[in-house]
């Protein structure tokens, strides 16, 4: 299907909800124009915008609720190093830099040129206009490489990338609203990963 030009668009809906998703519509860029896969999700979180922004802005918090991220090491205000679970107990790593940062409103990051798995993400925090807290939207674009690494990426973003993003954002909401991430485990040893 041919990509829409902006003048063809009639719907007031986010780019991720189009039947023919176009990452360019999110303002995110990837290494290869707009050919990457786009993941997006919006949730309403009953917490102040500034608090949500501050928690996310410290990337060291991301492994608390993002299932596949083992650790994020923060070098300075902009640069960080991510270690992510790959297939067969392997680990995929990359450096990321923050390319946009508006306190309380949005954070965007992108992998550096040498990353094996180029990806970029953007999170926006908006006050709801009907008093329901904060609307949080996450968009992630990644370029799945071919071959062995392609499998690593598939694993990294879950078998269904949208499902992985949905789960991670749901855990973020749970943690921010209730102070904990719910689990049906009967004891601390049996918490499902």
């Amino acid at each position, binding site marked *: 299907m041919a990509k829409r030009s902006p003048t063809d668009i009639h719907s007031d809906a986010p780019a991720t909800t189009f039947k023919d998703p176009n990452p360019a519509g999110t303002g995110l860029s990837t290494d290869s124009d707009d050919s990457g896969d786009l993941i997006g999700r919006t949730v309403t979180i009953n917490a102040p915008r500034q608090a949500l922004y501050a928690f996310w802005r410290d990337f060291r918090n991301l492994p608390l609720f993002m299932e596949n991220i083992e650790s994020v090491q923060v070098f300075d205000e902009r640069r960080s190093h991510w270690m992510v679970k790959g297939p067969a107990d392997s680990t995929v790593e990359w450096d990321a830099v923050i390319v946009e940062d508006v306190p309380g409103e949005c954070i965007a990051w992108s992998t550096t040129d040498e990353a094996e798995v180029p990806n970029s993400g953007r999170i926006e925090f908006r006050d709801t206009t009907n008093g329901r807290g904060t609307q949080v939207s996450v968009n992630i674009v990644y370029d799945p490489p071919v071959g062995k690494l392609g499998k690593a990426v598939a694993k990294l973003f879950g078998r269904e990338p949208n499902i992985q993003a949905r789960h991670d954002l749901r855990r973020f909401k749970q943690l921010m609203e209730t102070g904990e991430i719910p689990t*049906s485990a009967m004891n601390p040893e049996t918490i499902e990963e």
Partner: protein
Amino acid sequence: MRALTWQGKHDVRVETVADPQIVNPRDAIIRITSTAICGSDLHLYDHTIPGMKHGDILGHEFMGEVVEVGSGNKKLKVGQRVVVPFVIACGKCFFCQKQQFAACDNSNPAEKSDPSEIAYGYPMAAAFGYSHLTGGYAGGQAEFARVPYSDIGPIVIPEGIDDDKVLFLSDILPTGWMAAVNCDIEPGDVIAVWGCGPVGLFAIQSALLLGAHRVIAIDHHPRRLALARGLGAEVLDFEEVKVHEALSEMTGGIGPDACIDAVGMESHGMSPDNMLDHVKVATFLATDRVHALRQVILATRKGGRISIPGVYGGVADKFPIGALMEKGLQIKSGQTHVQKFMPELLDLVLDDKIDTTFLISHRLDLEDAAEGYRNFKEKQNEYTKVVLKPRYTRH
């Protein structure tokens, strides 16, 4: 500890399993003193609700003593007696703040929430002991239970009040009450209730307390109909009478102002549509048998209200959408917002305005729970409600 575990269709067993522990800060551990078998447990027993795993601990109606409290729970104290709502709700999300606790946006773990999101459009709230569609949390037909978000759910019971008087605050009493509330009862209203199981009986009691002029109850078990009559309802045995015609005649041709479907997907009867539903369910063309609900839609007066506390899980065939629209009916339904109704219902129990003990037909040792399930399913006339008591031989 000892616990009643699900092993497959019509196969539940009391087994020794690991004791639950505090996992999250807002958890509490409850030592269970009383727990009951619910009609909706039979859906799991019959395996008509998917998402069960071998070894799952059943039971969502339970109460007991607080034996351990997590660091994040500033409300409960060790030693307090509490009744635990079957719905697990966080108390913090948009839905909980609206007191729609059964719609809690957080209690169902992320890794469990996909099936209900796919089936229903949004992920459902969690419940105790009710399949992995609602979180996969261990239930309360056991000696101990881990209660998440325990600073929101459990209600503290004053000393000196018997378990039997308050146990049903966990589910069926608020479920019957919400069923009646959902009828938006006005003075002069005639309410018809399909199903005189525990929820139907409590709905009858609640409808009269909420000002119904008359209540007409429908079932086919003589003992259950006798209990309904004892609460003040007029009764219909659907094996004796043509229900629609009877309701029409008894309301002077107007029809009941509001009808309650307290049957759900287990409806019985040998009518042609019910037989057809049997075939379709057996061949997976539909999942829910809705004979009672069809009858409800036809019987309700024009412009009337329908309340559905009966459990449905999937899709129905031959749903009379035309009658619903053309008659201008309103439907309210849903799992019960237990946390919302518990305080006022506890007051009504303590003031002796509501009695729940009449319902209990059998009190069994937890060890005999499997027999309780079998009889509750097969001898519905005699077994109106089974309460289980753990023995604690191991503690």
